[in-house]
């Protein structure tokens, strides 16, 4: 909300505080001042311009104006502006409350700047037509300097949504620091606000409360007299700077009351008003509001029934037919207290959010109906020469307000402070609380304008706020630690391995478009009910689209190749419930040679990508089995994928991105995509036990190569795995040095070259020992897989 410095000074009764000082105090009290603007700063780019000529045009007129000895041509929608008048003008480049002014074209002509209304210039509430100024009077003299504080109010401080509330907060500093005995001027004292003597007669219209959600309802009837133009100008100036344009004097004063003391108010046309019933709405009642729109009300919304039909939606907006107009001569002014939750429930489905509902929802002072009517009466008397003719205040019983217990010792322990009882008592006093100190545990009764104070920790916060958060010491804790320490995080280690291998990490959104989702079939997707747009409609089922978008972004900017990864969640639903999985995925793609002078064609291939996967898996002591399968996550044509399995769980997958999908992301080169199931890896990882070192052998190693002919029905990995499983301890390593399948061998057989490395820790191995082990292993493989030795290989002295 906007607060006006001069208005606050008027309520405080002094001008001792600058706008900046007020801002500092309020911010330190938790009412954050987000900016301070001044009237003269708003005038800085504006000037007075004399209208030289006016030429009628469609929807307005073209004016020739003169400002600072220069002539400009300006289009103006206000047809009342005449030659000879002096108007408020913003030239091109000026910064105004509407934004930066530029040259705009209307028809075929350029309009050089704009003529502004007072409201558009941020100088008052009058939005009717262009603002006229006196020729020869400096703008700075026409508008005296004042400051506007832009204040952010948290939802618990509805009391601060008015100048009265802010003044109370400012004044409480003086009370706490002993400069004033108690909150006086800024509360309901007649010495601060002019208050009217309310009429003794009841209002002509009858008032009946038939809803539990209305605690108090007051109606003040008045006959409108002669307008005091100067007083009205002051009202419009203040509501304008508060952000509300002037409508007509009767409505302007209701808005003035709202900004001044925080009491929402509505003005009925009382000429036709006979009965008022505050009741809950029936099923699907329809109501035409002041904005001219028809609303179908939510059942049990509180409504104000006037003469048998709905005259207002309680706490939200008035009705079109029952509300006062500029021509009304007899009005009924409503002030009330409506239940915050009820107001919110009623207005939310209708998409309505008004200044009144905003305050009711944050709970207004429950004991200000009479005060508000007194203040309203005075305003209408002073500004509109009104005669107050009748008043009725009806109310439901208010719930008893319980005192809150307060233990100072507990408070100091909670805050880590040493606040004295005198300071604590003065703090409560400064906030308008009533205090009973007759026992160790005090009883604190909060003022009616602070319904947010309900439990003891609320009072601790008030003590901290008033004495100042700055006096709270910072105390370092004595902490105990888990001696075992933490298990290294799977994702973090894998991320490090990837970056060390040259990958860049990306972060993409967890939601994507339906178009991105079309390529996937695994699981049923989870959709958002209220997405920001079609690009954010569905929770992603794969990390692939995010990586492809990023790859495409970089490749389209002439990057020769990309290696990217992301760690994130994917989503699907099962039986109507959401499911999530943490994945680590990477993508490699290359569209051209990077152009190194000594090396060409460094394209990534599946084996390089697979090596990255296995580096990660091995880091967690996982020994996966590799196999080929069909990629089940992709929709459409079958796509082969490479899988890594540990204990019957697939922990990683790798596949080439199908061209049809690549094209969907403007990717026109080969790309490989892999993802690892981080959740499964966390489950399967072996405990990081401390390694027990063994003494390296002092003896030389021996090597033997064995070329085998293996039936095509066998897989190389199975042969290798069996050889490793059967090998004696002297076999240090077994690797594949050759794999061949071709026309010389036939379709049903392939050649596999195994290289064995032998070494013992206690002796040099003899040829007989080594050859004997080779023979033993060969026979084991022969028995298991029906392999044969390829021509030329030697088995323990025999040449095959």
């Amino acid at each position, binding site marked *: 909300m906007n607060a006006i410095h001069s208005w606050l000074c008027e309520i405080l009764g002094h001008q001792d505080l600058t706008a900046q000082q007020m801002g500092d105090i309020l*911010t*330190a009290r*938790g009412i*954050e001042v987000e900016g301070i603007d001044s009237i003269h700063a708003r005038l800085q780019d504006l000037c007075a311009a004399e209208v030289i000529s006016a030429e009628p045009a469609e929807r307005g007129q073209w004016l020739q104006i003169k400002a600072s000895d220069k002539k400009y041509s300006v289009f103006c929608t206000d047809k009342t502006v005449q030659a000879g008048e002096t108007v408020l003008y913003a030239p091109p480049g000026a910064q105004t409350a509407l934004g930066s002014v530029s040259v705009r074209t209307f028809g075929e002509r350029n309009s050089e700047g704009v003529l502004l209304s007072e409201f558009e210039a941020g100088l008052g509430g009058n939005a009717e037509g262009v603002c006229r100024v006196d020729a020869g009077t400096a703008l700075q003299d026409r508008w005296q300097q004042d400051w506007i504080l832009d204040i952010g109010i*948290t*939802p*618990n401080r509805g009391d601060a949504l008015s100048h009265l509330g802010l003044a109370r907060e400012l004044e409480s500093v003086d009370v706490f620091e002993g400069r004033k005995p108690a909150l006086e001027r800024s509360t309901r004292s007649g010495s601060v606000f002019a208050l009217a003597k309310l009429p003794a007669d009841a209002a002509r219209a009858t008032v009946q409360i038939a809803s539990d959600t209305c605690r108090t309802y007051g109606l003040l009837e008045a006959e409108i007299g002669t307008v005091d133009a100067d007083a009205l100008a002051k009202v419009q100036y203040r509501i304008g700077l508060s952000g509300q344009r002037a409508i007509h004097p009767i409505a302007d004063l209701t808005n003035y009351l709202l900004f001044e003391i925080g009491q929402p108010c509505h003005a009925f046309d009382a000429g036709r008003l006979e009965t008022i019933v505050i009741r809950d709405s029936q099923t699907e009642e329809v109501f035409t509001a002041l904005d001219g729109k028809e609303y179908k009300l939510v059942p049990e919304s509180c409504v104000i029934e006037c003469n048998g039909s709905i005259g207002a939606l309680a706490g939200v907006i008035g009705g079109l037919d029952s509300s006062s107009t500029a021509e009304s001569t007899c009005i009924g002014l409503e002030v009330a207290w409506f239940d*915050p*939750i009820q107001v919110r429930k009623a207005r*939310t489905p209708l998409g309505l959010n008004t200044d009144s509902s905003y305050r009711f929802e944050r709970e207004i002072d429950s004991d200000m109906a009479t005060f508000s009517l007194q203040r309203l009466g005075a305003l209408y008397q002073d500004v509109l020469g009104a005669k107050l003719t009748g008043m009725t205040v009806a109310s439901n019983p208010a719930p008893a307000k319980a005192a809150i217990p307060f233990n100072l010792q507990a408070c100091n*322990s909670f*805050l*880590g*402070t040493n606040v004295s009882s005198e300071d604590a008592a003065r703090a409560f006093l400064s906030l308008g609380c009533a205090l009973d100190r007759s026992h160790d545990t005090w009883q604190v009764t909060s003022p009616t304008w602070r319904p947010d104070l309900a*439990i003891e*920790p609320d009072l*601790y916060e008030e003590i901290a706020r008033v004495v100042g*958060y700055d006096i*709270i*010491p*910072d*105390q*370092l*804790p004595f*902490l105990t*630690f*888990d001696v075992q320490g*933490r298990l290294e995080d799977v994702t973090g280690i894998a991320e490090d391995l*990837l*970056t*060390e*291998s*040259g990958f*860049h*990490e*990306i*972060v993409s*959104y*967890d939601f994507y478009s339906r178009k991105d989702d079309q390529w996937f079939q695994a699981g049923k997707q*989870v959709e*958002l*009910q*209220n997405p*920001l747009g079609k690009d954010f409609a569905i929770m992603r089922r794969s990390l692939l689209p995010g*990586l492809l978008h*990023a790859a495409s*972004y*970089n490749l389209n900017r002439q990057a020769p190749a990309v*290696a*990217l990864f992301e*760690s*994130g*969640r994917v*989503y699907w639903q099962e039986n*109507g419930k*959401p499911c999530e999985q943490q994945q680590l995925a990477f993508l490699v793609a290359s569209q051209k040679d*990077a152009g*190194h002078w*000594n*090396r060409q064609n460094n394209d990534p291939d599946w084996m390089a990508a697979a090596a990255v996967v296995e580096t990660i898996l091995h880091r967690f002591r996982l020994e996966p089995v590799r196999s080929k399968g069909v990629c089940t996550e992709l929709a459409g044509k079958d796509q082969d994928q490479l899988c890594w399995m540990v204990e019957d769980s697939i922990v990683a997958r790798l596949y080439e991105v199908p061209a049809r999908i690549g094209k969907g992301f403007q990717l026109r080169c080969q790309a490989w995509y892999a993802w690892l199931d981080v959740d499964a890896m966390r489950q399967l990882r072996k405990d990081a036990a401390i390694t027990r070192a063994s003494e390296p052998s002092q003896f030389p190693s021996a090597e033997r190569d064995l070329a085998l002919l293996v039936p095509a029905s066998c897989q190389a990995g199975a042969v290798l795995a069996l050889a490793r499983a059967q090998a004696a301890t002297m076999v240090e390593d077994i690797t594949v040095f050759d794999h061949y399948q071709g026309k010389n061998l036939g379709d049903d057989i392939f050649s596999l070259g195994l290289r064995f490395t032998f070494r013992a820790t206690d002796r040099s191995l003899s040829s007989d020992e080594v050859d004997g082990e080779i023979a033993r292993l060969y026979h084991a493989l022969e028995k298991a897989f029906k392999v044969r030795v390829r021509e030329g290989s030697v088995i323990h002295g025999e040449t095959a």
Partner: protein
Amino acid sequence: MHGELAALDQAARAAWESATDSAAQDAWRQQYLNKKKGVLAPFFASMRDRAPEERKQFGQELNQLLQAWGTLAGGSRASEKIEATDWKTDPTLPIYPTPNGSLHPLTIVRRRIENIFLDLGFEIARGTHVENEFFNFEALNIPGHHPAREMQDTFYVDLPASDDGRWLLRTHTSPVQIHYMQSHEPPIRMIAPGRVFRSDHDATHSPMFQQVEGLWIEENVSFAHLKGVLRLFMSRLFKRSVQVRLRPSYFPFTEPSAEVDISCFVCDGAGCQTCSRSGWIEVLGCGMVHPEVIKAGGLDPDKHTGLAFGLGVERLAMLLFGIRDIRHFYRGSVEFLEQFRHEVER
């Protein structure tokens, strides 16, 4: 030596003598050193037809001849190339590209935060991104139809409501507090890093961003501890001593609540562009855990007090690295990302 090979050797040596310029020498190399297209090609091709005993000896002779001719010509082209490009000749030539991968700046900052709190004895907890209304709101003292719900514009998920209300994307990491309290006994010290979602998108707001939640529940934890922990954290994060200022604020799940400012780490509080000339930078929100939240976590608020804080990783990363537009984080531009390859945080 095989007769044919001996004749060839003679011819080759004579031809080398007469090849005086580099073009002629190149032609000679093609003719005599190329195993596949040169004069020796038929001999190599004939190997497979020779008897095993002969094959071994003939192969050795061929290789010896090739080696001798290579020596005659001052090395083959391949060996010439190695010599010409050896590091001893020109050590400044680029070597093969070194891996220049990078962690995302958000990961770097998140890890830095995690490591500071791990050193303070906090554990890392994680929660689901799809939550329900109870854990995201009610358990955190944000009842239905409370204006505080407007502080966080919520994405709702199109799934049948559960017993705990509608499904939604968590708007903050605070639901992890409740889950963690329900499954752990005090003393509780945990941080919960993770992605959160709000319906807001412009140059300074992203519909998805990262938060780190902190929770410490124990007997006699005080507001002064909160201030001490945060000052220590901020000084270690920015790697210099910083002043911490707490301002009263409002969060439904803490009481008292505070916004935390730190003295500007660029100008030391003198006022600069980074701190909008105020000398202070707003960095996070915090407070003492509201008794209703402790109750919702299954603990006794009369026995245990707690402090909690939540910070935005994007905001800290923007401050730390001087990043002006939040959208850079989500584009995946390698040009942007590789700037952070020297930032190491494990």
